[in-house]
């Protein structure tokens, strides 16, 4: 066989082999998992909020995975129980993340269930967490002279918003917070036989 064919075959075989080992076999293995826990699919509002989360690039600074207690201090920080593959079965795209410039968010709804806190924090993170490096997202809010009855008014510390105006959450802000408040993967796992870390 001449070298051309050797390289051609070698390139195809190595790439396909790696794909099978790293992606295909694990998928077959995990498809045998029967989830018995109370996780529900995202509602339409939550799914829309998830798209806002992606569009703003939140995933580049926030992971969504709690690691095993033997591997880091995630659990000691109160971030919840270790994550398992079935916790993500409604996630498309996955948002596991690779950075913790900010804290992990997979159980943020447990740690911070207040809608008002999230609104204020998104409007101006440094008003709620001094020293935070998170971007502020004022474009997710509207400034009004006076709030309507149906509006979600954002309660802010004095001096954060322009004087004489009220800050009102936009539909995107409402959806994003809907999504954040859906992030709870801290329920007890129903079936101990399910596959997870260590198996």
């Amino acid at each position, binding site marked *: 066989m001449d070298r051309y064919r050797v390289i051609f075959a070698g390139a195809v075989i*190595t790439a396909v082999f790696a794909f099978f080992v790293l992606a295909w076999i694990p998928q077959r293995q995990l498809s045998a998992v029967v989830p018995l826990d109370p996780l529900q699919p995202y509602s339409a509002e939550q799914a829309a909020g998830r798209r806002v989360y992606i569009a703003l690039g939140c995933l580049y600074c926030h992971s969504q995975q709690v690691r095993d207690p033997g591997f880091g201090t995630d659990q000691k920080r109160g971030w919840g129980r270790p994550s398992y593959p079935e916790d993500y079965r409604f996630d498309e795209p996955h948002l596991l993340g690779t950075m913790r410039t900010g804290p992990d968010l997979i159980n943020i709804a447990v740690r911070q269930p207040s809608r008002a806190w999230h609104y204020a924090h998104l409007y101006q993170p440094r008003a709620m967490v001094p020293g935070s490096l998170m971007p502020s997202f004022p474009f997710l809010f509207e400034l009004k002279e006076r709030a309507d009855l149906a509006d979600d008014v954002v309660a802010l510390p004095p001096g954060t918003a322009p004087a004489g105006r009220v800050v009102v959450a936009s539909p995107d802000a409402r959806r994003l917070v809907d999504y954040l408040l859906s992030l709870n993967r801290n329920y007890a796992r129903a079936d101990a036989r399910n596959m997870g870390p260590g198996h």
Partner: protein
Amino acid sequence: MTTAPAPVIVYEDSPPADVALADRVAADRSTRQPVLLFFHSAVVWLLVGSLTGLLAALKFQFPDLLNGTAVLTFGRLRTVHLNAVAYGWTSMALIGTVVWMIPRLVRAPLFAPRLAMAAAWGWNLFMIFGLAALFAGYSDGLEWLEIPRGIDVIVAISGGLMALSVLVTVARRRTQHFYVSVWYILASMIWFPIIFVTANLPIFTGVNEAAVNWWYAHNALGLWITPLSLACAYYFIPKVLGRPIHSYSLSLVGFWALAFFYSLNGHHHLVGGPFPQWVITTSVTASVMMVIPVAATAVNFHYTMIGRFTALRHSPTLRFIVLGAMMYTVVSLQGSVEALRSFNRMVHFTHYTVAHAHFGVYGFAAFIIFGSYYFIVPRLVDWEWPSGRLIRWHFWMAIVGLAIYVIGLSIGGWLQGQAMLDASRPFMDSVNVTKPWLLARTVGGTLMTASHFVFAYHYWLVVNRRGARRVEPAWSDRRSYISMRAPGS
């Protein structure tokens, strides 16, 4: 009456000098247009990528900077930066370089240069639509695969056309010998369409999608950017020195070990994550095994260079490429250590990884690309680079900027990891300790960006044939210029 086609002569070794020269002229003529298009485009994307990266870095000093619109929020600038430098600058520049090399290496003109031209235009179209979509907030949400799938089709076709052109050119070779650069280039041209298309198949969800995501993202480095950059180093180091590569068989060990081990590296990005541990262990093992191809390549380059290191002062090509190859060795060994669970525990999820990524893609790949430009461009436009001073400014700002960036951010990332691993410290400690080092990153990034503007300006000068016509290159080092010009005086 038909005339029989002239027999194609395949030479065992080197053809007579006049034939070799005629072949090279024909080879260069066939690639000139597409290479220039790839090179022009890459320089533009380099500037776009540098400015978005710099602005993203500044947001860590001024988090409320330009916060009036979603278009300029950190999450979008960072994404545009990555895609502009990975697919626009690095990929297009490397394709231009290998398109230029391949016909020379196989002594056959490029097959259907129009295919390569179409690929270059397609690639630019992908970049324009892709980056516009990212700015507008349309993202697939997968790192390295953010550009929406509908737009991805354009680059898949372009990559396929490019692969076709290169594969047929090599099939029409008039050499028996396959130089090692040809191995790397052929394999990469096959790998990229495979990994890119499979990664975009919408058949995975949840953690399985994370698996495909990292299988792809690491292979974009391991099976695309790395082998193409190595192909350049293997071509230019012997070329400029005028001496053969130290060991041909060692370079083949390097090739096959890279093909087998690098392709399995991806899941070290999932260490500690919710995924079957045997798969992650496979990737950790493969990451450590990368020591073999890296050591083979490093030894080979070193023994080729040995005794000739003074040439780095005369040749900007060699200076950038040899330094890039050295950084390849260091950053790869660093990567092997980083994959180990004990080390990963500390640096995963921190800025240390960001420093490592820039050390690799910039210190290794971009440096090799810069060196390749300094060699190829004068031969495309028949004009020497007009200014040695601009080359020196480019080099020193880039290397000093990179050093500040990588060292600073590595320290910051390490401190961040330390703070996160101490549960008694509040999370905000891990943010606060990074602040001075994030400032260092901005300073380093500013220098790197400035060097790119110098480089782009100089590139503009040379392609427009500005400055005096030179009969010899502008020296990259003033002292060597003086010592070469006036020996003994």
